[in-house]
């Protein structure tokens, strides 16, 4: 076995005045991996948004839309609902950037990871019960997303 570590004879230390290789990620084309990473963050945001919306909906006054119309201020002071909505906005923004350079047919189905996070978070936060169907669903979705993410690119 030859040693191929640091002491290669053709090793050239980087020059100090070498131009910076950093390019603004907003401008350059993202790699397949980066797009997948972005949409992964998206699913986390989406799940958090959904949970917040559920909490916010729970905090709304009873009586439905007419009660809200009578006192619209309840919407503005419902921070869970507002937080959920703004997370959805962020979700959309990140999704747009992921879609810009990724394939639609790869990026879009990955959003199904949402179901996984929401199911897990509901177990923890709302004390919903686990059952074999949910467990199987989580496993199968994760497997599907893995296959899609690994093989979907070039």
């Amino acid at each position, binding site marked *: 076995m030859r040693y191929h570590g640091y002491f290669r004879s053709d090793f050239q230390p980087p020059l100090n005045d070498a131009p910076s290789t950093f390019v603004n990620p907003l401008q350059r084309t993202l790699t397949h991996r980066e797009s997948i990473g972005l949409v992964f963050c998206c699913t986390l945001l989406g799940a958090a948004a959904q949970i917040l919306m559920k909490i916010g909906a729970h905090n709304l006054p009873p009586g439905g839309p007419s009660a809200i119309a009578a006192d619209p201020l309840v919407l503005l002071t419902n921070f869970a609902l507002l937080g959920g909505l703004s997370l959805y906005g962020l979700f*959309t923004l990140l999704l*747009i950037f992921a879609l*810009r350079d990724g394939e639609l*047919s790869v990026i879009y189905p990955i959003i*199904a990871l949402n179901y996984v996070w929401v199911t897990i978070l509901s177990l923890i936060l709302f004390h919903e019960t686990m059952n074999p169907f949910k467990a199987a669903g989580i496993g199968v979705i*994760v*497997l599907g997303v893995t296959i899609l993410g690994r093989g979907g690119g070039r």
Partner: protein
Amino acid sequence: MLLVLLASFIGSFGAVFLKSGSAKLRGGLRQILNYRLAAGVALYLLSTCFFVTAIRNGELTVLYPLVSLGYVWTMLWSRLFFKEPFTRYKFAGLSLILLGVWFIGMGNR
């Protein structure tokens, strides 16, 4: 049921508009307010409205898998509009995701 089908259909077109609008972002961040992206977001909101109405009076076990039909539409559109190839990986991944969503729908009964 028809409502959810419609919602998934509209939602998949939302994704198509987001994708086509996102290409304009290369021209700079100010391009974020273009009509394609706006149309995409609007279609999404519309599909959400349909979906919420449908879910209020319907069996979740049936509705969940129908929602994920949106992924199938999107796959078709991405081939049709953006010339993205069908691959084995995409078929395998998508089928597993559909199965998984159906399972979770069953588990939430």
